[in-house]
Every structure is written in C-alpha cells, then in structure tokens.
C-alpha cells in the first residue's frame, strides 16, 4: 500500500519553478533517501509532504488524503506524518519531557498518565531518559536532535520526514542520531523519507535512493542499483562520485 504518492506535482515560488513534474510513490514501511545538490528542491519536496509548502499543480496523496485539495485538514495529515528538522526546532520554553508530551496532549487528547509513560518510553528509545527535566538549550545538538525524533515518535506517526537531520551537527554527534534513525528504519511499519548526504545510512537501511537536481527527479533506483550498479543519469553519477570520495 502506498503511503505517499506524487502525481505530476508542480511547485512554483513566483516565477521560479521549484518542483518540476514530480512523480514518486513511497510504499508504507519503505525507507527512501533523497539526495541532490543544494538548491535541487529536495527540501521543498519533503516539506510538501506535510503541507509546510503547498503545491500548485498535480496530486499529492499522503495517507489517503489529497494535499492539493484546499479542504484537506493539514492537522490531520500532521498527526500521522512527523517531521525532524535540520535545526531541531525543539520548544525553547518547555522542558524536554514537555516537548514530547505537548502535542499528544493537545492534539491527540492522550490521558496524562499514558502520555507521560509513552514520552518516557520514547526518551528511553533515543537513550536520553535522564535528560527529561532539562531545557533544550542545556543539551548538545546531537541530543536535541534525538529528542526531536522522540517528540515525533510520541505522536505514533505512520511516516516520518527527515530534512537534513545531521547537517547541523558536530561530526562526533552524527552517529548517535543515525543509529536512532536506523533503528526506526528497521521497524518495518514506519515509512521514512530522508533528505541526507549520509551515504552510509542510505547503504545500510534505505530501500531506494532518489536523486534530484534543479527541481527534477533524475534517478529513482533501488539501493542496490544505485550503489553497486551505476545510476543511469550522468549528473547522478557525478554527484555520487563526489560524495562517496569525501
């Protein structure tokens, strides 16, 4: 069953054509890694999936609802589709525990006791249960990003979007975050769309690799074909050789 379907999606910023005739289907439980040079539209694409960016043409079906339809309730989509950002975006005025409990309380009306139990379970899952009473600013970037993942997981989403989750982190923090993400990816029920340049992550847990440039999807391969064979697209081959040698 497909979780996310793009059909001939177009997105413009004024005259700028940010997404060019996007066709992409992601099945439930799949992990898809989205790569491409900066300005290629990969962040724009991932942000359309939970309605942070609106599309102008085409059809975008997420969890059975069409996001091109103005009447679609975005909050209902976002209950089922979590997002992790490059800069974490933890609530600066709330403790770690409150960061995780707030949305389930307000949006899902989850009872307080159950809410706290789930929040602590999620903190445990990302290895940070002892940080619960702290404020976000007291944590390192890598810890904050793991909290952000726990916050998304606490909503019990069907899909998770990751927009360059390790790009703002110090190198020694990256593995902690990637390990948490790999752990989620191995859970066969979670659909993941990940914008990243961490090819080790892609090699290990991705089902497919999608390459974008200038707002087009140029390559959509299985992991095996992308890494072991050769991408058929010339730009994708060049890009791959650059990030692998680095």
């Amino acid at each position, binding site marked *: 069953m497909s979780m996310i379907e793009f059909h001939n999606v177009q997105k413009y910023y004024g005259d700028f054509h940010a997404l060019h005739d996007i066709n992409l289907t992601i099945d439930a439980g799949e992990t898809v890694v989205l790569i491409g040079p900066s300005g290629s539209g990969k962040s724009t694409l991932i942000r359309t999936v939970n309605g942070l960016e609106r599309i102008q043409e085409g059809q975008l079906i997420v969890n059975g609802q069409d996001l091109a339809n103005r009447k679609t309730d975005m*909050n209902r989509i976002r*209950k089922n589709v*979590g*997002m992790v950002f490059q800069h974490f*975006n933890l*609530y600066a*005025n709330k403790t770690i525990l409150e960061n995780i409990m*707030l949305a389930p309380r307000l949006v899902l009306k989850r009872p307080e006791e159950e809410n706290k139990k789930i929040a602590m379970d999620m903190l445990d899952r990302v290895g940070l249960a002892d940080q619960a009473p702290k404020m976000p600013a007291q944590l390192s970037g890598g810890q904050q990003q793991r909290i952000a993942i726990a916050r*998304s997981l606490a909503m019990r989403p069907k899909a998770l979007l990751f927009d360059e989750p390790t790009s703002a982190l110090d190198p020694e923090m990256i593995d902690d975050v990637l390990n948490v993400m790999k752990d989620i990816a191995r859970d066969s029920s979670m659909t993941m769309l990940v914008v990243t340049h961490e090819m080790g992550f892609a090699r290990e847990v991705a089902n497919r690799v999608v390459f974008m440039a200038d707002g087009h999807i140029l390559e959509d391969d299985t992991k095996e074909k992308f890494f072991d064979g050769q991408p058929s697209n010339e730009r994708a081959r060049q890009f791959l050789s650059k990030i692998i040698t680095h």
Partner: protein
Amino acid sequence: MIAIFHNYGGLLLQGFGQTLLCSIIALLFSLIIGSMFAIFEVTPVKSLRVIARVYIEVFRNIPLLVITMFFYVVIPMFVTKISGFAAGTVGLTIYTSAFIAETVRSGIQSVDPGQMEGARANGLSWWQAMRHIVLPQAFRYVIPPLGNQFINLVKNSSVLAFVAGFDLMYQGNVIASDSLNTMTTYVVIGILYLIITLPLSYWMRYLEKKLA
C-alpha cells in the same frame, strides 16, 4: 511643601487615586487589546491583518489629546454622556494599545520561525502553537520595551487633566492656582507620579531578570 500636603491632602489623595485607577485600567486593557492586534498582525488571515494595520496606524499617529477629546466631546453628541475620567481612560487605552501591539508584534517576529514550524509539523494548530510556544517566548523578549510603554502610559494619564478627570495633574493645576505656590505644587505632583512609576519600572526590571 508640608503645607501643600497639609492644606490640600484630600485633593492630592483623590488625584493620586484617579491617576492610579486610570493607569491600572488602561494598562490592563491596552495590554489585552494590544496583544490581540499583535496576534491579528501575524495571522495567516489577511482580513485580520488589514484590520490590525488600520487600527494601529490610525491610533498610533494621532495625538493622545485628540483621541481623548474625541471621546469626551464627540461621543456625547451622538451616543451617550461620558465622564472626563471615562473618556480619558478609553482614549489612553486605545492610544497605548496601538503601541503595545507594535511592541508585541516585534516580539513575536523575533521568535525563531522554526518554533512555529516545529509546532505545526508536530500537529499543533496555528493558534495552539502561538499560545503555547510562540507567545510565551515573545513576551519574554518584550518585557523591557513593554515596561517603557507602561511608564509612558502612567505619565500620559495626565491627559485626564484636560477633560476634568480629577487626576493628579488636574488637582495640581487646582492647587497651584489656589495656593499660588506653583513650584512646590508641581514638585509634589512630580513626586507623586514617581511613587507610581518607579516601583513599576523596578518591577519590570525584576520580571526581566527573573524570566531571562
């Protein structure tokens, strides 16, 4: 100076009370109305943004005295009789709320947009995100400029003197012309204003430190 207090104690006390009462009412309501228009200014709803823009630009750019006179003179002509105190307090509230709206809006806009985006992506509605995440952070930023607005508000309450609001300034004028001791009278009036504004300014500074 003691003679002024001795001979005109009742008038001074009444003036002080009226000024304090007007300031408290205007402060409370201008904070509520100002915050409301600040939120209107940043909503995704265009009509609310337009309403807020018009309100703020109109009342921020007309002298307080003109707004107050409007309520004191024009409203009774068409609607209902209104006391000088009421006209002055309403005028002061509306005038100050326009400045508070601008102050709070700048606070909201200085909160990292990632906070709103993170909250929306987490499933919160725009209003939930505003109320639980953005506004608490915005108010923390704007305590110092809000303190300035509050102090200005107390001082601007002297507009009541023009519409027979029986406030400190009004009683000061009465006492000065009765006692003919102009200098001492206005020194006393100044001190009485300080008794309101200095604690207010220290309280705002305390809040700023406590919440920072």
